[in-house]
């Protein structure tokens, strides 16, 4: 327990200190975590912590991230991406693997080593790249979409790679290499045993070690014949899709009975972990499984709820993952082979970058987007770590080469945030005009969030959608949702007053928020939160009564609609007409009343102080009396300085006016 607390505290404090500093310096959070990890490295070594084991645990953050990415991606859009996914992604993996293998051959490696090295280095870092895309809001750009296609293809490609690599095993060759290199590696590797112990070939004897994500060997299908394995694989994927489509809704409705926020979090975690477990059991990539589940749930009304529940865990685990990458860098080995390792790293990144640049050009990426693809994906990735321990265990590569490659992978990941900085500072300004135009287009499509879809918000939503605007509707009544679903309307489950949910619904990129929830205090709180944290969002708020108007005004909203005011005005106008007032005069009187009342309430709202009771607020009471006196004067037919506009408009000129013209 003590060591668990100590370890947690160490990682938390390193992250809490390093990341804000890195962000402040414009380096981005990923580099901050990596640096924190490097600083933490010696401490962990001294405490004899198995960093690599910890890293396998933290890789679950990648699984969660792919779940979240899946949630953002409707099946339709995934289908639209298929050309990019297979073409761009397939060619990137294929070309990079061939070229990297070729380079390895040139360095005098046997062909089996070369193939394994090529495959390992063809992969990029999903964790770093997607995290940075999200942080910088690049996910929806052309370059971001292409980068994501490549990463997704790589995640899928890992599965056949795991099947293929054991076929490359040549124990004699590996032993021979190890023997020849012994004199060289022993002296370097010896003092570092603590940090790299898990890479030792201790469990290499079995040759059937498919356990790449966790420390338990849970694979159930290994011993089965091929056809049964395939059947089970498809069965598992089918189960994820069917479960996501049909079980989520009843599950969440059941949970809702408890009215406990944390149960939603628990259920969301349960889903993600359960799917990952199922995938591990049948020998599939957990990341791919959860991604699939995410895509299935992208159309679900619980999407934003799930997103906001999982997101903090993803963030923490990925942070831990980046720190373990930093801590895992073997500086002894690095400085022993500095020129070689740095040279290999730069060579690798140049090669991967060149392939990406070529493919981005072929696939029609222009300007800044082409450079984004090139620079963002030029590193090797976390699957490289996984595959490296896998190839050593399967006697495909000798430990000495794997250790050096491990450094190359880690170093290339360390350099990636610098390439993003290069992109931000050098590439983007060059293409700034293109970018501005693109930003405008996104702005046009800027979403509208509607909080509350009852009798009020529902009408607003229908009007906006009929006018062709896309809306995201949040409501936290299951009955309401079910009713709307019956009519084919799409709404999301969730309490809009929760900032995390609002974030998941896209408040950061939204143009407008319509607040139409029944809860007065909730509406005021929501207004205050959004005006303070997202001042770019225009708020249209529904007020329940006069005091609520004042509260909303004090919270910073300037577009407040009293929910019964307009219907009351129409009733008043109908009453005037029924009393024999000419319909046009009734209309004018209605407008006039509306103007005056609006004017008065705005004036009084400025005097209102939520801390002071109304009747003790002297300025408010004073002004109310004055306004009442003015109204009184009007009633008695003494317009004074406040002549009714209705009397002025269309009034005929007087005799005097006509005489003035005729004499002039």
């Amino acid at each position, binding site marked *: 327990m003590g060591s668990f607390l100590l370890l947690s505290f160490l990682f938390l404090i390193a992250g809490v200190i390093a990341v804000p500093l890195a962000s402040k310096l414009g380096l981005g959070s990923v580099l901050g975590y990596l640096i924190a990890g490097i600083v933490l490295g010696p401490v962990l070594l001294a405490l004899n912590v198995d960093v690599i084991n910890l890293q396998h645990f933290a890789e679950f953050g990648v699984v969660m991230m792919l779940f979240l990415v899946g949630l953002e991606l409707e099946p339709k859009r995934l289908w639209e991406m298929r050309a990019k996914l297979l073409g761009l992604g397939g060619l990137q993996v294929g070309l990079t693997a061939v070229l990297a293998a070729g380079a390895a051959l040139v360095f005098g490696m046997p062909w089996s080593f070369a193939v394994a090295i090529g495959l390992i280095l063809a992969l990029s870092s999903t964790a770093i790249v997607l995290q940075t895309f999200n942080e910088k809001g690049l996910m929806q750009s052309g370059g971001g979409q292409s980068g994501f296609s490549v990463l997704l293809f790589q995640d899928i490609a890992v599965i056949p790679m795991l099947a293929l690599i054991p076929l490359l095993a040549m124990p004699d060759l590996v032993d021979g290499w190890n023997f020849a290199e012994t004199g060289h590696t022993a002296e370097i590797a010896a003092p570092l045993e603590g940090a790299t112990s898990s890479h030792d070939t201790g469990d290499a004897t079995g040759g059937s070690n498919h356990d790449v994500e966790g420390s338990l060997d849970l694979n159930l299908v290994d011993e089965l014949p091929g056809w049964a394995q395939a059947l089970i694989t498809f069965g598992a994927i089918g189960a994820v899709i069917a479960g996501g489509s049909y079980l989520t809704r009843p599950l969440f409705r059941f949970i809702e009975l408890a009215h406990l926020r944390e149960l939603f979090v628990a259920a969301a975690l349960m889903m993600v972990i359960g799917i990952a477990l199922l995938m591990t059991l049948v020998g599939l990539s957990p990341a791919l499984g959860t991604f699939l589940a995410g895509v299935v749930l992208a159309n679900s009304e619980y999407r934003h709820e799930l997103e906001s529940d999982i997101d903090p865990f993803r963030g923490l685990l990925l942070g831990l993952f980046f720190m373990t990458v930093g801590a895992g860098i073997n500086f002894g080995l690095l400085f022993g082979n500095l020129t070689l390792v740095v040279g290999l790293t730069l060579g690798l990144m140049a090669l991967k970058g060149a392939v990406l640049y070529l493919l981005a050009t072929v696939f029609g990426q222009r300007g800044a987007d082409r450079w984004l693809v090139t620079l963002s994906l030029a590193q090797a990735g976390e699957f490289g770590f996984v595959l490296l321990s896998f190839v050593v265990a399967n006697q495909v590569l000798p430990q000495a080469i794997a250790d050096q490659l491990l450094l190359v992978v880690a170093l290339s990941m360390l350099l990636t945030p610098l390439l993003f900085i290069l992109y931000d500072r050098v590439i983007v300004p060059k293409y700034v005009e293109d970018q501005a135009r693109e930003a405008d287009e996104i702005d046009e499509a800027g979403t509208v969030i509607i909080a509350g879809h009852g009798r009020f918000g529902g009408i607003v939503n229908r009007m906006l959608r009929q006018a062709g605007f896309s809306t995201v509707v949040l409501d936290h009544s299951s009955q309401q949702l079910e009713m709307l679903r019956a009519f084919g309307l799409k709404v999301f489950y969730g309490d809009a007053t929760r900032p995390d949910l609002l974030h998941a619904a896209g408040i950061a990129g939204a143009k407008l928020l319509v607040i139409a929830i029944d809860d007065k205090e909730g509406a005021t709180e929501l207004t205050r939160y959004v005006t303070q944290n997202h001042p770019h969002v225009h708020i249209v708020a529904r007020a329940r009564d006069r005091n609520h108007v004042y509260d909303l005004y004090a919270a910073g909203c300037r577009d407040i609609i009293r929910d019964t005011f307009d219907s009351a005005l129409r009733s008043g106008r109908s009453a005037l007409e029924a009393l024999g007032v000419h319909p046009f005069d009734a209309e004018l009187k209605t*407008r006039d009343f509306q103007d005056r009342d609006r004017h008065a309430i705005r004036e009084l709202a400025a005097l209102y102080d939520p801390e002071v009771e109304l009747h003790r607020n002297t300025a408010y009471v004073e002004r109310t009396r004055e306004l009442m006196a003015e109204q009184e004067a009007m009633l008695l037919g003494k317009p004074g300085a406040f002549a009714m*506009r209705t009397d*002025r*408009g*269309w009034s005929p*000129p*007087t005799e*005097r*006016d*006509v*005489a*003035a*013209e005729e004499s002039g």
Partner: protein
Amino acid sequence: MASVLLYYAHPGHRHSHVNQAMYDAAATVEGITRVDLYATYPRQDINSDREQALLLDHDLILFQHPLFWYSAPSLIKEWIDLVLEHGFAYGAGGDKLKGKILMQAITTAGSAEAYTTEGYQHFPLRTFLTPMEQTARLCKMRYGAPYVLHSALRAPEAGAVAPHVAGYVDLLRRLRDETYDFDAADALGQVQADTLPFKEGA
């Protein structure tokens, strides 16, 4: 420097061929006030106090609109009915607009030939504009000859939009800088992009 107040009125702005482009281009001219009447009063409830204050602040009032039924879009008429009050614009004590200039920038669907005694509109354009001209006179303002584009619906194919918009921007700058020759414009009756009269040496 003359202060220019540009009133734009086009309820069908989404289908506009020329007027919206003119109004948008006018935004590039610094130091003039632009008012999109249909955007300011979407419910047609014109605020006379606000409008009269605007008029007092400016030297030149320019109405930019398409010609609707030999006249202007209805909101301009409503504006005239409510804003040009007796006692303010005319009548006893109504001299607040005295000495200012009133102008129109008009597009017509009919061709220049249509607006002749031989053409299908039977009258020259200026005949249809006499109510506005007399409105200016009654308010003791000078009426400036209108800036006109005929055959506006065919202007995009004819490549006439860009020159007309450029001429409009030029006109607005000249009006602001007081280098526009009103007398020469009066002599022409109506002006267009290639006949804008500017003061010599300016």
